[in-house]
């Protein structure tokens, strides 16, 4: 191989390493261009860094009135929840408890999630009926019910990122393959794996099975 060829090969290899590019597949030409109006009609998601927040603002006071009217029948007047509907306030500091109370204040890592979710899908059964200002106001009210902002607080696009939720730092990415490494590459025991077997609990005791299907059994 000539020196020149070697240099070419080396250069080519370096290029591959230095500039990884996706292979350019042949385009099918299917589909059509999305229009800006179409994208803005559907692109309503809001990220934790505030990307996607619309202009607007709303106060705790306005939020309280809206919440009583549109939300309280399920979530309670103080966001404490009714029946099996989600509790949205309280529970801060209970994540290590036997029965943690997961709410917007106690568990949710990012405020943007509340704004995004309420605008996207609430009130339940009448999605997309709240204006952006109304959404800001309801989120402000939820912050107030969780004792994170004061009664006179006004939430806006401008001050949104200044509010942090208390549980943000407790989330970390999936580490099962390291933390639960002992579940891998074990040689499963096949015989005499334990001295005795003891029944420690029965579903029957809790009796929550929806149908009594065990009745009427008879072994022939």
């Amino acid at each position, binding site marked *: 191989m000539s020196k020149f060829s070697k240099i070419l090969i080396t250069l080519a290899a370096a290029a591959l390493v230095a500039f990884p590019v996706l292979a350019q597949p042949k385009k099918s030409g299917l589909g059509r261009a999305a229009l800006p109006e179409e994208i803005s009609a559907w692109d309503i998601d809001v990220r934790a860094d505030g990307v996607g927040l619309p202009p607007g603002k709303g106060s705790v006071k306005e939020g309280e009135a809206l919440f009583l009217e549109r939300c309280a029948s399920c979530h309670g007047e103080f966001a404490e929840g009714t029946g099996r509907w989600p509790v949205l306030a309280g529970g801060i500091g209970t*994540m290590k408890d036997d029965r943690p109370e997961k709410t917007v204040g106690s568990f949710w890592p*990012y405020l943007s999630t509340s704004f995004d979710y309420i605008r996207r899908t609430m009130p339940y059964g009448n999605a997309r009926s709240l204006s952006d200002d109304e959404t800001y106001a309801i989120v402000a009210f939820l912050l107030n019910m969780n004792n994170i902002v004061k009664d006179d607080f006004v939430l806006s696009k401008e001050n949104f990122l200044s509010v942090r939720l208390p549980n943000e730092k407790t989330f970390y990415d999936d580490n099962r393959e390291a933390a639960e490494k002992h*579940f*891998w590459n074990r040689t499963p025991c096949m015989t005499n794996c334990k001295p005795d077997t003891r*029944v420690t609990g*029965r*579903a029957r005791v809790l009796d929550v099975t*929806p149908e*009594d299907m065990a009745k009427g059994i008879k*072994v022939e």
Partner: protein
Amino acid sequence: MTDSGKEKSASRRGFLAAAGAGAALAAGLGKAGAQGAKPDPLITDIQDWNRYLGDGVADRPYGKPSAFEKNVVRRDVEWLTASRQSSVNFTPLHALDGIITPNGLCFERHHGGIAEIAPDKHRLMVHGLVEKSLVFSLEDLKRFPGRMNRVFFLECAANSGMEWRGAQLNGCQFTHGMVHNVMYTGIPLRAVLEEAGLRTNAKWLLAEGADASLMTRSIPMEKALKDAMLGWGMNGEALRPEQGYPLRLVVPGWEGNMWIKWLRRLEVGDEPWQQREETSKYTDLLADGRSRRFTFIMDAKSVVTNPSPQAPMLAKGPNVLSGLAWSGRGAITRVDVSIDGGKNWQTARIDGPVLPMSLTRFYVDFDWNGSDLLIQSRAMDETGYVQPTKDELRKARGVNSIYHNNGIQTWHVKANGETENVEVL
């Protein structure tokens, strides 16, 4: 359901009487057709269906299961959720065999009810960090080259979630029924992403449904390009409305919530969106008060479907124990079964296709002498993962994770055949 339960029980007894051998042996009477036995009127009498004409070909344009299979249905647990529109029902695993779940029995999980969308009114938009934002009709997608068919399980991350603190529900339909296994028809997701042209900082994808919950999940681009699909078919026909007709995302081996139904939008971005279903839900709260997020992969898991509380043991003598195993990390390599609560194990016989990220069927053919059994199964996958016991899992995670409970299930079979969900040490 009491009536239908009786009917089912009665028909099983009828079957056993007709089959003869098992029942006769159990009763110690010797071989079938023992002296003094009366002829079976089902054989000696002419039955209605032997004489009269049945329905013609115009009567059942879309065939349904036999009327005698009316108990084989999805069931829900009313007290689980506040509303039936944001709720779940369960696949009747105890009544199925093989690896494919029939379309009408695939468990349902909706957050805003079942959207009914005319295919000609459905659009898929691809935008964000792409060279060219695009809109596709369903017909456009069906013209893409590279159409494919793949079998995958879909398991809700909350499957078995009610069992973290101990045995609760009597029936594998309820303890393990948030799983189904279907052959999907569609195209690789990467086909539409490459059609739009990914920019170099395209690291994440937001998928959004068109239903009243506008369900959203962030998906790492690596997975989107590796093996995710845009699916419009299931088991040879169009998706059922409950499963996202006319278009859903297929995310092999990963938790069901990410398989966005009624898929209408794909936004390409450089970081996850921290949506409701990946922060407040589908994160795993551990004993130390911290939470794992983005726990997308479903760990290896198995369950004995027969016997189980809804499918008790009915006869001594020859019996077929059956169950399902699956792993989000690849193919199942082995399943062991214990009948003494985990003291001794034997390797089960796997039958049918063994596919990566698919349900896999196993059997143990055995003789039951009528003594109590504590039945368990233990799955292993091609990465070397061995399904843990429930206690090993609790030791690692506590009891408040809700999601990803893949611990070994125990069924207690009693002398009368009744089978119960229990916990053992």
